């Protein structure tokens, strides 16, 4: 549960729009962080399609020069990826609770 | 091409309660003549299939009006499990039936199928139709030159128009 609260904090942080216009460097950093988290989710066999969609949207926006949008999408992707990591981590043991015995 | 009987026999194991299932072996023959060596009355009613709404389609197809009849029986599910494949059938106790048609009101074109029933053929037909969304379905029986109908509503949650 602690990790979930942590994630919600991250998520709120991620959703606060940047005041100043974002740069390509901002995008690169945000995207790298998101991609790293998504990669970790991949090793846990628990990527989300929504994360993938955000990553793709981020790339497209960046390619079009819209870094505000790109950074926002990348940050959301990171938040989603982290949520999926939290899910996979907690499910490592929790799945047993659902088992029919 | 042939099919062996054991094949169908096994199917019955799982399909308890389904109607009598039997099979016909059949041979392929090369196709030669155009298929529609049909009589004039068997001409494809192209225009009626392009119209929107029951009334316009009925007018184009028959040129007369329809009355609701409890002698027409329409079998349609209450909720279609998938709008792409909805089993629909109709039968009637009326004599001198010459045709049966099916209208799906909410489809882009209401007329779905129109069956010419020659003498000696039972006034009963089953088919599978597509439905775009929840819709009225009407079976129209032409008997003794008059039109009789039965209507049911079919709820469609997964539409049959792709997607």
């Amino acid at each position, binding site marked *: 549960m602690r990790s979930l609260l942590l994630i919600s904090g991250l998520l709120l942080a991620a959703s606060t729009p940047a005041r100043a216009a974002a740069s390509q460097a901002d995008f690169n950093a945000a995207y790298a962080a998101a991609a790293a988290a998504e990669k970790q989710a991949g090793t846990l066999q628990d990527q989300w399609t929504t994360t993938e969609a955000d990553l793709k949207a981020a790339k497209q926006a960046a390619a079009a020069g819209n870094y505000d*949008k790109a950074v926002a999408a990348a940050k959301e992707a990171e938040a989603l990826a982290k949520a999926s990591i939290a899910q996979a981590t907690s499910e490592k043991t929790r*799945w047993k609770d659902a088992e029919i015995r | 091409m042939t099919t062996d009987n054991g094949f169908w026999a096994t199917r019955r*194991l799982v399909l308890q309660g389904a109607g009598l299932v039997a099979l016909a072996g059949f041979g392929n023959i090369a196709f030669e003549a155009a298929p529609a060596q049909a009589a004039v009355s068997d001409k494809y009613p192209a225009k009626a299939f392009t119209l929107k709404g029951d009334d316009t389609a009925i007018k184009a197809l028959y040129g007369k009006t329809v009355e609701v009849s409890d002698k027409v029986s329409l079998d349609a599910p209450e909720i279609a499990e998938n709008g792409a494949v909805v089993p629909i059938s109709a039968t009637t106790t009326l004599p001198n039936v010459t045709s049966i048609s099916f209208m799906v009101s909410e489809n882009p074109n209401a007329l779905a199928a129109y069956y010419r029933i020659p003498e000696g053929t039972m006034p009963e037909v089953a088919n599978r139709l597509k439905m775009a969304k929840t819709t009225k379905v009407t079976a129209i029986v032409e008997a003794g030159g008059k039109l009789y109908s039965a209507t049911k509503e079919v709820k469609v949650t*997964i539409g049959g128009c792709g997607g």
Partner: protein
Amino acid sequence: MRAQLTTRLGSATLALAALALGAFAFVAHAATPNEKIDPAADAKAFRDYFVTKFPKVKLDDFVNGPYSMNADMRKQWEAIEQFPPYDFALDEGKAMLSKPFKNGKTYADCFANGGIGIRQNYPYFDEKEGKVVTLELAINRCREANGEAPLKYTKDKMAALTAYMAYTSRGKLMDIKIPNDPRALAAYENGKRYFYTRRGQLNFSCASCHVQNPGRHIRAETLAPALGILNAMPIYRSKWGALGTISRRFTSCNKQVRGVPLKPQSEDYRDLEYYLSYVSNGLPISGPSSRP
């Protein structure tokens, strides 16, 4: 900009909500570490659960999925099964089974009894390899061993061939064996883990739908019970307008809960198939079958 952000935030919030829901969904009974893996006891409990939950459904009828629990749907299904749209695929599969490869051999050379009536024995645990081998995998291995390109796992030819092989096995009881090999037990346990593990943004496990809610609707679909669910494979889904294999079904289940699917025939999927088939032992093969 604002509006877009709000929309995206919406989906992120959904993720959180789903997670939170998951956290409270069960009264946890603490899992004992190093619990003994007992597939036979699992299978009995699994079957008992469904039989108790659906006292009106005959055991053999569970393989008919949602149709075992909904009369209106069953009637439509029976109408469709009178002359099912997968009929053409059965012919194709039959022809495939006996048609020689370029080297003159056939599928029949790879399978017991020429591939006829053997569906109930798949998947099996290969003790030499130490892995689970599914029917779909065995088919492609057979092809590759004979110099043929593998088939796509999800549909078309693979679906047609497995449909025919299932068809010739109809009525035979699922008979999955777990050899006395710790690796086999581990594969079984891994499949079980996959089955009960919540995943995807919607935070659903396979069990969330097919154990806890069969017969109920999710969006427009009626959920099938997990007991015997693979006995009906492959399935012709009206939604697909075509036959799909077990690989296709697993993949689409993952996507439906907004999870990125694994590669067809990846180890987790194979283990999942092993587990799900084992707990459905004793129920008849009914595939291929039509589904909404």
